[in-house]
C-alpha cells in the first residue's frame, strides 16, 4: 500500500494565492473574470469569502512596488495583460472585518520598505482580524523598482539564480537583508509584553514600562531602536511566510519563516527541497521549531479533465504563447488534483498554495470541488477548528522573547 493510503491520510493545509484576475496572463479575458472590478473592495471581498467558504487556511495577496511584467527582472510595455494593483496589506485589512476564520497574508517587499512601518501594519491587521494576520516577505532586484525609491541603485542581473559571483552576492545580500528585516519585525512584535498595559489607577500608570522593550536591532544595512508603537498582536507573532526557489531563499525560510512556499515539479524534487530546508533549519539551530513547507501549484480545474486542458490551451492561445512559470501547472479534475496533492504530501510537504489560473473559475473549483473531494478522503478539515491563523496551522502562540 502506498504511504498516501486514503484510509489514514494526514490532514493537509490549503492556501490560495490571489493575484489580479488569476495567474494565467490571459485570465482577464475569460467571461467569468471581472477585470474592471479589480480596483474595488467588492472584488477582493468576494474572492476571500469564497476561499473561506472552502475552509482554506489562508489566502496570500500578491503585491509589488512597480507594474507587473512578463519579464522577470525588467518592466515591459505590454497592454494586453493586467497592469496595476492595490496595496496588499490594505486589501487584507479591508476584507478582514468581512470574514471570520480565514488567514490573511499580504505580500510585503523588504527591499524598499521600513520594518517599523510593516511591523505595526501587520500587528494591526492581526487586531483587525482578531488573530488571522501574516505577511509574505519578498525581495526585489528590479532596477526599475529601485528607481521608484531613488535611495539605492541595484546592479543589473540576468536572473535570480544566475551562478556568476556578482549576481550571487547581490541576491545573497538582498535575502540577508530580508532576514534582518524579519528579525526586526519579530522583535518589534515582542517589544511589548502581553500584560504591559496595566491601567493602574492607584499609581496613575497606564503601562508598566518595564514590560516595554527597546529592540536595538543592529544589522548590516539598518538599525531599529523600538519599541513598537503598537502593542503585541493577538497571535503574539503573526505568521511569516516566504516563497523560495533556491538555496539562498531556502535559508531565509529555514531561519525566519513559519511557512515556506516551494515549487517542485515532481515528488522526488519535493523530497529533495524539503530535505534541504530541514538541513538549513538544523544548521540555523531551529530544528525543533515547527516549519511548514507548502508546494505551489498553478491550477486549471474542471470536473471534466479534458475541459481543463482545453481551457488551458485556449488561454495560452489568447496569450500568444504557452504560459509557464516557476510552479508546476496542473490541468485536470478535482479528483485528479487530490490524487496529486496526496502523492506530493508523501515527500514531507504539509500543505499547498494553489494559484488559480482564472480566479473567478478555479477558486470556486477549489472551494467547491477540490475541498469536498479531500474531505471525502478524510484529508481536509470539515469545519474551522481554531480562531487564529496560527491555530489553524497547529502553531502555538509563542512566548515573548523579552518576558522575564
Amino acid at each position, binding site marked *: 500500500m502506498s504511504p498516501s493510503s486514503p484510509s489514514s491520510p494526514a490532514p493537509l493545509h490549503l492556501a490560495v494565492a490571489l493575484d489580479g484576475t488569476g495567474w494565467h496572463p490571459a485570465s482577464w*479575458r475569460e467571461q467569468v473574470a471581472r477585470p474592471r472590478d479589480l480596483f474595488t473592495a467588492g472584488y477582493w471581498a468576494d474572492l476571500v469569502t469564497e476561499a473561506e467558504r472552502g475552509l482554506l487556511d489562508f489566502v496570500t495577496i500578491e503585491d509589488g*512596488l512597480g507594474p507587473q511584467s512578463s519579464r522577470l527582472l525588467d518592466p515591459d*510595455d505590454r497592454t494586453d495583460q493586467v497592469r496595476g494593483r*492595490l*496595496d496588499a496589506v490594505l486589501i487584507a485589512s479591508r476584507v478582514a472585518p468581512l470574514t471570520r476564520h480565514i488567514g490573511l497574508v499580504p505580500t510585503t517587499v523588504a527591499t524598499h520598505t521600513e520594518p517599523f512601518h510593516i511591523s505595526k*501594519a501587520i500587528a494591526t491587521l492581526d487586531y483587525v482580524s482578531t488573530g488571522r494576520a501574516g505577511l509574505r516577505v519578498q525581495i526585489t532586484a528590479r532596477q526599475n523598482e529601485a528607481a521608484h525609491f531613488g535611495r539605492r541603485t541595484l546592479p543589473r542581473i540576468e536572473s535570480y539564480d544566475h551562478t556568476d559571483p556578482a549576481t550571487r552576492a547581490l541576491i545573497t545580500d538582498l535575502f540577508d537583508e530580508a532576514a534582518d528585516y524579519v528579525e526586526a519585525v519579530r522583535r518589534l512584535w515582542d517589544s511589548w509584553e502581553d500584560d504591559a498595559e496595566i491601567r493602574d*489607577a492607584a499609581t496613575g500608570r*497606564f*503601562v508598566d514600562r518595564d514590560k516595554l522593550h527597546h529592540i536595538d536591532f543592529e544589522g548590516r544595512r539598518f538599525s531599529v531602536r523600538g519599541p513598537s*508603537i503598537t502593542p503585541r498582536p493577538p497571535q503574539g507573532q503573526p505568521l511569516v511566510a516566504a516563497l523560495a526557489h533556491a538555496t539562498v531563499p531556502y535559508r531565509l525560510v529555514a531561519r525566519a519563516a513559519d511557512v515556506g512556499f516551494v515549487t517542485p515539479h515532481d515528488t522526488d524534487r519535493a523530497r529533495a527541497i524539503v530535505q534541504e530546508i530541514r538541513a538549513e533549519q538544523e544548521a540555523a539551530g531551529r530544528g525543533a521549531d515547527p516549519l511548514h513547507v507548502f508546494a505551489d501549484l498553478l491550477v486549471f480545474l474542471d470536473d471534466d479533465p479534458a475541459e481543463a486542458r482545453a481551457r488551458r490551451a485556449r488561454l495560452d492561445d489568447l496569450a500568444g504563447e504557452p504560459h509557464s512559470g516557476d510552479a508546476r501547472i496542473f490541468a485536470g479534475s478535482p479528483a485528479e488534483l487530490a490524487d496529486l496533492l496526496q502523492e506530493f504530501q508523501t515527500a514531507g510537504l504539509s500543505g499547498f498554495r494553489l494559484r488559480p489560473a482564472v480566479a473567478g473559475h478555479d477558486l470556486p473549483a477549489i472551494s467547491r470541488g477540490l475541498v469536498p473531494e479531500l474531505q471525502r478522503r478524510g484529508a481536509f478539515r470539515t469545519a474551522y477548528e481554531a480562531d487564529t491563523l496560527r491555530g489553524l496551522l497547529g502553531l502555538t502562540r509563542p512566548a515573548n522573547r523579552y518576558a522575564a
Partner: protein
Amino acid sequence: MSKPLKQIHLAAHFPGVNNTTVWSDPRAGSHIEFSSFTHFARTAERAKFDFLFLAEGLRLREQGGTIYDLDVVGRPDTFTVLAALAAVTERLGLTGTINSTFNEPYEVARQFASLDHLSDGRAAWNVVTSWDAFTGENFRRGGFLPQEDRYSRAREFLTTAHELFDSWQGDEILADRATGAFLRDAKAGSFVHTGKHFDIHGRFNVPRSPQGRPVIFQAGDSEEGREFAAAEADAIFSRHAQREQGQAFYADVKSRLAKYGRRADQLLILPAATFVLGDTEDEARDTAREVRRQQVSGATALKHLEFVWNRDLSAYDPEGPLPEIDPDVDAEHISRGRAQVRMYRDPLATAREWRELAEANKWSIRDLVIETGNRQNFVGTPETVARTIDEYVQADAADGFILVPHITPGGLDEFADKVVPLLQERGVFRADYEGTTLRDHLGLTHPDEARESRAAS
C-alpha cells in the same frame, strides 16, 4: 438681506496618545481593539459627520530617558485601521496622519490611492513633518531632517505624490475582451521627478482613484506650516478652537490663499475641540472640572511642568508652589517625542509668566497646569453647545470642528444623539449625506474637474 448660513463641518478624532483620554474612567474601553474603532466610526457616521481622524506617532514618548507611562501608550497603524473601517462604514471620510519625513512618496502614494479605491473615495491625508533624530532611530535609514528642511521635504513629498496620482488619467483601463487590450496606453503611470529630496522615475502602479487625489490636511502652526497649508492643503487641523484666537488664525490663513491663486473657500479651517455635556449648565461645568482633574493628576502636572523647566521636578509637591529654580535651557530636552515641547519656544519667559499667574491666583502646580492647559472648548447643555458651535462657525472662527471626546470609544455617542439634531434643526448641519466621497462632504472640487475647467478656460 442676511448672509446665508454657513454649513458646519464636523469630524471625530479617535482619542489616543495624550492626556485628553481619561483611561481610568470605568466607561473607558480599549484604544487598540478594532471593536473600539468600529463603535466610534459608526457613531460618527450615524451622526453624518464628514470624517474620522487618526493621529500618528512613530516613537513612544519618553521623559527623562524612560517611556512616558501616565497617558495612553500605543496605537495601531493608521492605514490598516482606516482600510478596515472602510468595511464597516459607507460614507464617512477616513483621514489619516502620515509623516512626510519617515516615508517615501511612491509607497505613501500607493497606500493613499489604494485606500481611496477601497473606500470608494473617502481617503484623506494629514501631512505632518515631525523630523527629529529621536523618531529617526526607529527607521532603517535613520533619516531625519534639520527642522528648517522639514517643510521643504514635505512640499516636495506632496508634489511628488500628486505627480504619481496624476500619472493615470482615469481612462486607461479598457479591459476589452474582444481585442485583448487591457490598457489603452502602454505608458500609463509614467513619471519622472527630479528635485532636492527625491530623484525618482518609472511607473506608478495604482490606477487613478475615485477622488483623483486624497483630500490633503495640514496640522502645523509655524509660519512655514501656514504657508504650506495655504499653498497645498484642502483643510487645516488647527489647535485654535477659541473664538478670538480662532478668528485671528482663520483670517491669517485665509488671507494667504490669494497669492497661490486660490479662493477662501478652497481651504477649510477645522480646529480640534473637546466638549463636555450636561443636563444643566452647572452640571456640565462640574463635570468639566472633574474631567480636568482626571486628565491632570499630580504626577501628570509635574511632568507637564518638566516640558518647560527641562529638569527633573519629581521632588516638588504638585499641590505646592511652582519651582523657584529657572528652566534649564542648555541641556538636551528631557521630554522627547512630543509636539508640545515646541510650543514653548521661550521657556524662561513662559516660566516667568506662569509664576506670576500662579502667585496672583494662589495656584498650585497642578492648578496651574489644569488652568493653562487645554481646557474643554464646549461646555454646557446640548442647546448651548450647539448654539456656541454655530456662532463660532458663522463668526468665521472656524469652518467646523474636529471633536476629541475624552472617553474611548463611547465619548461621541452623547454628542451624536443630543447636539447633532439641534444643529440640524438650526439648518447648519446636513440631515443626510448628499454625496458619496469625502470631497463631496467637504464641498471640494474633484481635481479632474479643476483640471478640465482650467483646460476649458
